């Protein structure tokens, strides 16, 4: 009998402490980020899908189509084509296809690039009703549309 009363008191006490802890939260700042109106600031190193980088001086894409990224990619999701423009010694990129649906965002392509022609975007909230939007992303086209660094 004594044990039962003791246990009852103990249970009541633990319930009260638990409620007190919860009550404390009422007086704290809410942690919720109200997403579409309020956004988190992403860190500089955030890895979104890759984009091509423009040269600051010439304004052209830096990529020389050496295909290093294509070779190192673990998921085979990059296809690069390049051609030599007349009167130039180095190759320029003509086509850069990314299958983002196979990408694991490991960053090996960005690391291996010898001319720093790739960078991560900060597109963290992609969603679409069409699979094709991400299946064959043409980074050259995206760059033309202003989506490059």
């Amino acid at each position, binding site marked *: 009998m004594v044990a039962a009363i003791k*246990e009852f008191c*103990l*249970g009541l006490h*633990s*319930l009260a*402490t*638990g409620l007190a*802890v*919860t009550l404390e939260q009422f007086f704290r700042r809410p*942690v919720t980020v109200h997403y579409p109106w309020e956004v988190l600031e992403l*860190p*500089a*190193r*955030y*890895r979104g899908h890759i984009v091509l980088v423009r040269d600051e001086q010439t304004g052209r894409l830096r990529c020389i189509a050496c295909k290093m990224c294509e070779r*190192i*990619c*673990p998921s085979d999701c990059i296809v690069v084509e390049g051609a030599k423009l007349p009167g130039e010694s180095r190759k320029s990129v003509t086509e850069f296809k990314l299958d983002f649906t196979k990408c*694991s*965002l*490991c*960053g*090996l392509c960005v*690391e291996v690039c010898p001319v720093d022609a790739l960078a*991560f975007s900060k597109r963290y909230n992609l969603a679409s009703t069409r699979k094709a939007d991400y299946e064959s992303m043409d980074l050259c086209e995206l760059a033309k549309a202003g989506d490059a660094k």
Partner: protein
Amino acid sequence: MSPGHPTDSSVSAAAPRETFVLNVGPQHPATHGVLRLKLTMDGEYVLHAEPVIGYAHRMHEKMGENRTYVQFLPNPSRIDYLSAMHYMHAYVCVVERALGIEVPPRAEYIRVITSELNRIASHLVWFGAFLLDLGAFTPLLYAFDDREKILDLLEAVTGSRLTYCYYRFGGLCNDVDEQFIEGTRAFVKHMRGRLGMYHKLVTENLILRKRLEGIGVISAELCRKYGATGPVLRGSGVPCDVRKLEPYSVYPEFEFDVPHFAEGDCMARYKVRMEEIAQSLRIIEQAIAKLPPGPVMAEKVPRVIKPPPGDYYFAVEAARGRFAIRLVSDGTEVPYRLKLRTPSFSNLALFGEAARGLLMQDALALLGSLDLVIPDVDR
């Protein structure tokens, strides 16, 4: 065993026994992912439990034989996504061991800091999910709130929230900045206070204690026979921790205890993990204080990774226990065989034996206390 259990001779002699098979999963809120349990029940008691696995088999071992050493780098963090850092650690270390690469001390210190942060994050997910199994929803919200703070720190350094591809053969892909150090210091302080709050809110709660104390006892001998490791083994009173027993990285330079409780019940495993969070905080604090300057990448890392032919083995203490990689190299760019020894696999293997004779809800408490990650079981 609880009184009135059907295997008591007094009961079994009476009414005719009828058993039935209860199928739990592969989609079931209590199984944490796609685990399936075939439970042979006698009323509310489990007579026989058989886990059916393979619903998240992702052929990591086959991929190891298909990709170069560098290309396998994204994989380890996806085997057990909750302790991604530890798995990366084991993988880069086994290749470093094969190649004989010395890693600069700063890189090893940062590896330890990030690993321990990851361990806390993993235990917090377990804390939330385990209590959710037991019927308490609120702790999950607190735990995820604290976990977000860790993720923010790690994301600033690695660029992703969950599947960090941060370690490289010979070091790290980039250095940490002052902001991370400050943030981690602040987090350690914050987390200490929160741990006290968790104990007040949860550990001292009578309902929780009634649900966990004396339930699902696993003996040290059973752990040995099944190869169970991590908090499961330590909850059975064996202070076995790879960080202490087979020290790797710079762990010998830190002071920390290996929490272990002899009871072997769910409460012991709960206490081990809560205590481990405190110990991880201790390690992080020391590592930050001692963090040496210098490079984070070894100088002599070959461009093409081709380990000499042979058989190499490396074990680390992941959040769920001993994770080991056996690498068989034939001297080419591609591993010949990559065996992944995952802790959840062995920990789940003993469930069948440990759950025998438990009440249904106690069996689920036991399952939760094993802290399983199903892709880690299935690989």
